[in-house]
C-alpha cells in the first residue's frame, strides 16, 4: 500500500498536465459507446478481507456524535476504495493512469458521473442482487449466474463492484481495467457477470 501511495502521488504530480486530455479520452469513450449501443452492466464479486485489513492500518475514522462505535469497517472500505483505485491506476503505468477517470470527473465543463460503485455486502444480499438482475436483464448464459450463486457463502462478506460497462478498446471493457486494478490490489476475484 505504501509503494502504491508513494508512486501514485509522484505520478499524480507528473500527470497534472495530461489531466484534461485523460478526462476527454474517457468522456469520449463513454459517449461513443453509448452512441454505438454497447453499454452493459457488469458485476464483479471479490473477497475483500485482505484489503480491509490493509485499509485498517492506514485510516482512522470515528463518528463525532450519537455515541456510535467506529464506522463499520466494510462501509469504510467501500468509502475509501474509490480513492485507492485512483492511486492504483496512477501506479500501474503511464497509459493506464487515464482510467482513474472511470470514477467520474468534476472538472467544470466535463463533469460526468462515476461508472463504478462499491458495496461490501453479506452473501445473502449478494444472492438477492443477482436474483433481481437475473429477472431484470438475464445474462447471455443464465447457467453462469447459477454457478456464481452457488459460489457465494451466506455467512461471508463480499466486495461487490457495479460497473456501467463500455468498451475501451477493441478487446477490453472498462470492467477489465477495474479487474486489472483489483489484481494489483491482490484482491481475490470470486466471480464476474455481465448483463445482458
Amino acid at each position, binding site marked *: *500500500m*505504501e509503494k502504491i*501511495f*508513494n508512486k501514485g502521488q509522484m505520478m499524480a504530480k507528473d500527470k497534472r498536465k495530461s489531466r484534461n486530455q485523460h478526462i476527454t479520452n474517457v468522456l469520449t469513450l*463513454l*459517449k461513443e459507446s*453509448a*452512441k454505438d*449501443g454497447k*453499454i*452493459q*452492466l457488469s458485476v464483479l464479486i471479490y473477497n475483500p478481507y485482505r484489503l480491509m485489513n490493509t485499509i485498517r*492500518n*492506514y*485510516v*482512522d*475514522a*470515528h*463518528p*463525532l*456524535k*450519537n455515541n*456510535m462505535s467506529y*464506522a463499520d469497517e466494510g*462501509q469504510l*472500505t*467501500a*468509502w*475509501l*476504495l*474509490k480513492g485507492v483505485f485512483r492511486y492504483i491506476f496512477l501506479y500501474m503505468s503511464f497509459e493506464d493512469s487515464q482510467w482513474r477517470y472511470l*470514477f*467520474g470527473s468534476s472538472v467544470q465543463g466535463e463533469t*460526468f*458521473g*462515476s461508472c*463504478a*460503485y*462499491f*458495496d*461490501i455486502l453479506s452473501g445473502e444480499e449478494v444472492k438477492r*442482487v443477482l436474483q*433481481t*438482475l437475473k*429477472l*431484470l*436483464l438475464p445474462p447471455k448464459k443464465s447457467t453462469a449466474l447459477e454457478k456464481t450463486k452457488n459460489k457465494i457463502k451466506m455467512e461471508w462478506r463480499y466486495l*461487490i463492484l*457495479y460497473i*456501467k460497462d463500455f468498451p475501451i478498446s477493441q478487446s477490453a471493457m472498462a470492467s477489465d481495467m477495474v479487474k486489472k486494478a483489483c489484481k494489483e490490489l491482490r484482491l481475490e476475484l470470486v466471480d464476474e457477470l455481465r*448483463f*445482458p
Partner: protein
Amino acid sequence: MSEVKLHFDVVTKTPTLTGEDAKTSQAILTMLIGSHMKKAKAVVQQYGFLSIDKTGFIVRASSFKGLLRVASEYIVELKSIELGLGHAVCSFLDVEGSIGFPSCALPIDLENNEQRKKVEVFMKAKWINIQDDKIVYNNYPCIPCAIFGAPGLKSLVRISLNGDAVAPVETTQYKLYFFNELGRSKHLHENKLKPLILEAINPGTIISLEISFASNLAKLRGLRAKTCDPIQLGVATIWLAIQLINSGFFRLGRFKSRGLGRIEINPREDTLKMISKVLGAKPSPEAITKKAITILENELKERLK
C-alpha cells in the same frame, strides 16, 4: 383508469449524503424554521422536501424523480439493445452531439432547413417515418420522456414526500483522518491533520415516497403509449427502474462511488396489490417484474419495429 397513487418506503442501506449545496440548504431551512407555519407549509408544498435536523442537509422529492428517471432511461435502453431494436431513449441517441442528456429534439418542423438535418438521424433509428411529406412519430416522445416529461410535455407522474414533510431525520457526522505521508504516527489527529468531515443520513432511515399518476394526461394514448394504457406503461417502467436502484446500480445523493447513497425502495402492501392490479399480474415482486418486462418489451417492439 382512475387515479393511481403508489406508496413506497425508501430505506437508506448505507450512510447517505444529499446533493444539496450548503448555501441553498441554509436558505431554505431559514425560510422554514424562522417563518410562520403557513409560510413553511407553502415552502414544503413547493419543494416537497424533507429536512434533516439542524445539519443543513435536505432531501428533495425531485432527487427521487431524477433517480427514477435515470434508472428508467437505463433499463429502457438496455432492454431495447437486448431486443436488437437499437436506441430507444433520447439521451442515448446522438442528435448533433447531444448524447448523454435527455434531449427531446422532436417534433421536427420540416419547413426549417436546420431541423430537417435531424430527420435522417431519427429515420435511421426508426423513431420517425415520412408519409406524404408528413412525419409519423413512432417513438416520440421516448418512453422515459412520456413518463417523466420533456420540454413542452407535462410529466405523467408526480413524486412527493409523504407524511410529515418536515420531520427530522437522524444523521451522523463522520470525521475521517487520512495519512498524507505514510510512516507518520498512526494517531493522525496527533499530527494535526485536517480531517474530512461528512454528515450523512443514517442507514436504516425510512423516507415515505408517493408516486401518483395524472389520470387526465393518461388519456393521451398513442402519444404516451402505443400498446397499453399509459399508466400501465408508467407503472411497469418505474417498477423496473426501482429494481435496478435496489440492485445498487443507481444511488441517491453525493459520494455514490464511495459506497454511499445505496437505497432500497419498497412498496407498501396495498401498493404491491395496486401495482399487480394495474399490470394484471400476481401480487408477488417476481410476477410483477416478469409482467412489467413483457409490457415494456411489447411497447418497444411496437415503437421500433
